[in-house]
């Protein structure tokens, strides 16, 4: 045991990292074993996300097929489960084209720039007890910052492709991402208020009652905002196939296209992971904490299923409907939620500022009432104004005048 990670190190809480670090430290010098352990964890994370993306692409295609009374991919492997591999091989053998007028460097960076935030998001998410790569004390902020990189990547793709469709897609994508960033952040503030911390580990341990119950409005806003940021079907204007072909990734082919697709499917999983951590009490389950990863994966599966379900159901919105939904509906909801939560926390907390389980249940009751009231009020406010079909005057002809 040559090398020991000090408790002040940011990676001290990561059990796997410590084990690799101390194990490799027996053979290699400490600095090198630190690098080796870091690379090992990164390999695990990147490959885990990519593998999950491949698996999810198959699961989602099967699911959407069944939602549409079809079968879905079923040719290769049991139930077609090797379909992602076939897709990957096909995409790897395709020619990697770059348009003549493209900005070559930016064009080549984009797939990595899209994949990187997806992988980076997983760095702070705790899979199980002491399994987060880094237990940042600003984890929520980190996640918000990292997800915003995607909008830059989308705009880079649109700009560098030298294609009008790509530019349109990128403009739409950036408009959507910027609009939906606001209600998402506002909804997360409520969670942070209740948890009293921005570290995702603390958020998980604060959830004696899942925040889905304590913050139903925040969950709804976060779910809608996230599916808009993921460019998924009710909000997939940036890559609307029937309007602008493929949007910002229209010029991508081969390996780059594979990476972009992997980033999109992986983003669903990582967003689900973040949502599980923030709203569904993360890795803590009802039976045993040693099975934290199993609970975590199960909850991710449930959320991914809901994502596929929504995608299979709803048609695409128009861009003005989409932005109106963000600014006129989600943003007021998240502000109301933030105010209600702030008042509840102010009145219910004890001397040290902490909330116990009874307080959380009380907040859950109040917040469900608030959510229900909000939906009722907004239902009357946003109701489509249809002009009643009254008697038509002026232009009509009486039977005598007709001839």
């Amino acid at each position: 045991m040559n090398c020991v990670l000090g408790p002040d190190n940011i990676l001290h809480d990561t059990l796997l990292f410590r084990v690799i670090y101390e194990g490799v430290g027996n053979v290699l010098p400490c600095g090198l074993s630190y690098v080796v352990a870091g690379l090992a964890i990164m390999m695990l994370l990147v490959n885990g996300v990519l593998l999950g993306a491949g698996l999810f692409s198959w699961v989602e295609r099967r699911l959407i097929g069944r939602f549409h009374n079809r079968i879905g991919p079923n040719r290769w492997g049991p139930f077609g489960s090797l379909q992602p591999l076939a897709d990957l091989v096909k995409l790897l053998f395709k020619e990697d084209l770059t348009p003549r007028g493209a900005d070559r460097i930016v064009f080549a960076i984009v797939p990595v720039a899209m994949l990187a935030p997806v992988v980076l998001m997983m760095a702070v998410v705790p899979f199980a007890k002491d399994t987060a790569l880094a237990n940042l004390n600003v984890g929520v902020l980190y996640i918000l910052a990292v997800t915003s990189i995607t909008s830059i990547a989308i705009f880079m793709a649109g700009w560098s492709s030298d294609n009008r469709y790509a530019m349109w897609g990128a403009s739409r994508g950036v408009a959507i991402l910027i609009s939906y960033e606001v209600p998402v952040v506002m909804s997360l503030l409520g969670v942070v208020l209740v948890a009293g911390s921005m570290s995702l580990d603390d958020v998980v341990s604060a959830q004696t009652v899942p925040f889905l119950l304590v913050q139903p409005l925040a969950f709804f806003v976060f779910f809608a905002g996230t599916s808009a940021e993921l460019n998924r079907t009710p909000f997939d204007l940036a890559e609307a196939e029937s309007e602008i072909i493929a949007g910002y990734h229209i010029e991508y082919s081969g390996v780059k296209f594979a990476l972009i697709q992997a980033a999109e499917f992986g983003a669903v999983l990582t967003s689900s992971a973040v949502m599980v951590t923030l709203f569904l009490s993360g890795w803590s389950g009802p039976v045993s904490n040693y099975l934290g990863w199993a609970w975590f994966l199960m909850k991710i599966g449930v959320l991914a299923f809901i994502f596929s379900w929504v995608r299979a159901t709803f048609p695409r919105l128009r861009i003005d409907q989409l932005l109106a939904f963000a600014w006129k509906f989600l943003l007021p909801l998240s502000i109301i939620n933030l105010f209600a939560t702030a008042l509840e926390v102010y009145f219910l907390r004890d001397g040290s500022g902490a909330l116990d389980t009874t307080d959380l249940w009380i907040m859950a009751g109040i917040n469900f009432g608030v959510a229900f009231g909000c939906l009722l009020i907004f239902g009357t406010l946003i109701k489509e104004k249809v002009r009643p079909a009254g008697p038509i005057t002026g232009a009509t002809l009486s039977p005598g005048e007709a001839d």
Partner: protein
Amino acid sequence: MYGINLVKGLMVTMKNLTKRPFTVQYPEERVKQHPRFRGEEFVWYEERCTGCASCAKYCPLGIIEIVTTPSETAPAEGDKYKLEVFDIAINRCMFCGLCVEACPYDALFMGSGFEQGQYSRKNMVINIDHLRQAEKRPSTYFRPQLEDSGYDPGGGRPLHWQEVGREGWQWHQKEKAGMRIDRPVPSDLLEQEPPVDSSFVEDSEAAPTPVEEAE
């Protein structure tokens, strides 16, 4: 309530998730085909064919080519013509079924298959050997005697030429407009021998000229 219709929509797709998929996996599974389906690869019974070339005459596209020669025994003695060529250019066929309707001896039937894709147009002309070897699973199109017997070409067995005819079928005995079924047979016809045109027999044996029906 706001958004309640979204939940309704979600329930619709959820209901579909629990149903069986509608898809039929074609090479492994097939949809049930109607017995009267007019398919490719005509079913031709050489034993029933007299070489009258009615099918070729009735074909609106003129894609059936028939070449016959008189056989050793005379047609008037009950034998038939020998077919040398029976080509159907199936790439131009529109499957109207008029040739089948025209056949007076129930020798030609529509097929029941649909998988005769070829790489070349030349292979789309079905010749007499192809027709001989083709699987005899006739469609019941314009053949009510087959349909009445409950024959299904999709799952059914191949039919022998003796099974497909109109002989045991009662339809032609029923009364139709301008015809009386229990009409008494004239007595002179019963006693008289059937007339034999001896000159025709001598002619055909002297010079066997092939009767040709080309397109």
